[in-house]
């Protein structure tokens, strides 16, 4: 690359070749470009979120492709590429550019942190390709920063805050203090949870923002403790959340004050153990042990990955399968045609029933309020949750009326 940059002539030659190449392919095929649909799984392979997405996301993608192929005979091939976005915006946008420009990737999926999602969405819009976001959480993706080539699939900060905060306030946790990861995601989660707490008659006493990623939370917990709030809302994720919970117990913050993990995954519960997390409320889009269908798919996943799937991985399966079905329905991998087909068809699989994609890019589906089981209630490995409530799709996500997305016609 260095050499090319140094020599503008070489760059020009390359560009000319690229142009010629694309002309040839454009005329040679009518439907699926170069007869291959390429899916790029851009995820956290090495950092704090690699357990909840990571290689498991690639496994889920492959399962979706297997299932699609088993049911459909199509003339085009499907390929998967994957890379580590290291939770950094610049790395992810560079990778996405490289994939779109050079490797002819049609769709980039997963994107585990808000920073990477926002960066790749912009690149996708510029290159007119699709971004299917399963991992990232911020509602900014379907509000201020929304665009027409992105679908936000699995959950968002509004949905998880709405489910958990509402349940906790109803249980009598009226006063709140937030422990927030100091970046776009944490702030978004804190804001959404604050709105829910206020709307349900609770009161927010304050917040402390910690650097991301952190390892020692005792100082922040002490601040939360001296606030006297009944509930400490954890507006962070991954190891930040697990360390906060562990240290809260150590410093005697719990059980006098209770913790509400606003974004927790089953891998976090697995890591902390039930003794530490019992009776906590959390909101997820998916639980492997919810019904026959989820169990059957999760077992297939477990056989490959040796871990039960998180909602991010299950959601990614759903998004990938829906995308492939849309390509087949549109008989094209043209971005606008595929997006139209995806929005037209309801999402029906083990992950979502009658899910729909709105004009702001939000895929709306039911969410579930879970309560973590007590150690003696858990009968077999990964038996962690009681499903307390199904939050219907219409209530689970922010309403279109409140949306700040420019694509929403009001």
């Amino acid at each position, binding site marked *: 690359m260095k050499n090319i940059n140094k020599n503008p002539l070489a760059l020009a030659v390359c560009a000319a070749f690229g142009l010629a190449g694309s002309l040839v392919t454009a005329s040679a095929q009518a439907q699926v470009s170069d007869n291959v649909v390429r899916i790029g799984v851009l995820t956290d392979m*090495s*950092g*704090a*979120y*690699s*357990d*909840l997405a*990571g290689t498991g996301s690639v496994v889920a993608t492959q399962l979706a492709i297997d299932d699609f192929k088993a049911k459909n005979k199509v003339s085009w091939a499907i390929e998967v590429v994957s890379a580590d976005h290291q939770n950094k915006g610049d790395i992810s946008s560079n990778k996405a550019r490289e994939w779109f420009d050079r490797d002819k990737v049609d769709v980039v999926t997963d994107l585990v942190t808000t920073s990477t999602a926002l960066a790749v969405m912009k690149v996708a819009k510029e290159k007119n390709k699709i971004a299917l976001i399963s991992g990232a959480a911020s509602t900014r993706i379907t509000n201020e920063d929304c665009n027409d080539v992105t679908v936000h699939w699995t959950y968002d900060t509004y949905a998880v805050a709405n489910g958990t905060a509402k349940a906790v306030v109803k249980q009598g946790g009226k006063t709140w203090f937030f422990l927030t990861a*100091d970046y776009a995601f944490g702030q978004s989660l804190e804001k959404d949870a604050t709105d829910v707490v206020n709307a349900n008659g609770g009161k927010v006493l304050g917040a*402390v*923002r*910690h*650097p991301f*990623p*952190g*390892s*020692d939370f*005792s*100082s*922040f917990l*002490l*601040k939360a403790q*001296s606030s006297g709030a009944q509930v400490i809302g954890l507006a962070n994720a*991954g*190891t930040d959340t*697990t*360390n906060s919970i*562990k*240290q809260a117990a*150590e*410093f*005697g913050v719990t059980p006098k004050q209770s913790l509400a993990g606003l974004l927790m995954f089953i*891998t*976090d519960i*697995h*890591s*902390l*153990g039930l003794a*530490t997390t019992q009776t906590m409320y959390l909101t997820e889009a998916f639980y492997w042990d919810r019904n026959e269908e989820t169990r059957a798919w999760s077992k297939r996943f477990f056989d490959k990955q040796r*871990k039960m799937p998180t909602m991010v991985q299950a959601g990614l399966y759903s998004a990938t399968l829906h995308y492939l079905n849309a390509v087949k329905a549109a008989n094209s991998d043209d971005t606008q045609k595929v997006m139209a087909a995806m929005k037209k068809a309801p999402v029906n699989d083990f992950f979502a029933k009658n899910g729909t994609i709105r004009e702001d890019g939000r895929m709306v589906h039911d969410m579930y309020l879970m309560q973590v089981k007590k150690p003696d209630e858990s009968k077999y490995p990964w038996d962690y949750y009681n499903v307390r409530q199904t939050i219907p799709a219409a209530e689970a996500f922010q309403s279109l009326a409140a949306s700040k997305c420019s694509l929403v016609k009001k």
Partner: protein
Amino acid sequence: MTEIFGIPIQALMGQLMLGLVNGSFYAMLSLGLAVIFGMLNIINFAHGAMYMAGAFFAWMGLTYWGIGYWWSLILVPLTVGVVGVIIERTMLQWLYQLDHLYGLLLTFGLALMIEGAFRYFYGSSGLPYSIPEELTGAINLGFMFLPKYRAWVVVVSLVVCLATWFVIEKTKLGAYLRAATENPRLTQAFGINVPLMVMLTYGFGVALAGLGGVLAAPAYAVSPLMGSNLIIVVFAVVVIGGMGSIMGSILTGLSLGVIEGLTKVFYAEASNTVVFVVMVIVLMIRPAGLFGKEK
């Protein structure tokens, strides 16, 4: 309630105490780094990985073989020390005469490989390790609730740090070590086995990191990332204290922990940058560090 700068004195005392706890980890890790740099001239980037390995060995001991916390405190540093000795014998010993960069690159590569291996096998979410029964519960200090375990960490690390300082600065063995660093050829001419001493020093340095790991296991989640989260701060501590200065790194470790704690009271967002701000200021005023001597 009495207040200082609008902060209740209770909260302030609590944060100071916590700063001291974190400072103990910094002190113990930076001490190991300082010893290794002082004696071997190696910038040991694998230190964080050794600390992480220490925590993992403690977890493995408990999970696979039922070795409890107290035995781990002794066995794990020994194991990590042996790993260190093997690394020193097979790789590092060829680099002493070369530029610092070679040692840095080698140990950096090692750190990435060790971390990667643990992440591959154990994932990134972290594994639970519970506090030993004797140390559960907390002491009510009036201004805060100090978990017994944290108090224990401060005590152990102070004892270990001071003992190390004593051995190196005040005993005959320490004098040999210092002589071997100052002028290895002459020391060898007096019949002292310099390569052996250097090897043991490296082993001891990383054993300190391993001990840090065992102490950290019950306090934090045992995770492959725990070392890299800490190592940069620890390097900053060594730079501030003065490369190679033993007492310097102990005192700097503790005081930076406290400074960090105070930052968390006044402006939490800056708490992970404050160490580096201090580093910049110190380097501008005293390029060799607070306790270092210009060569």
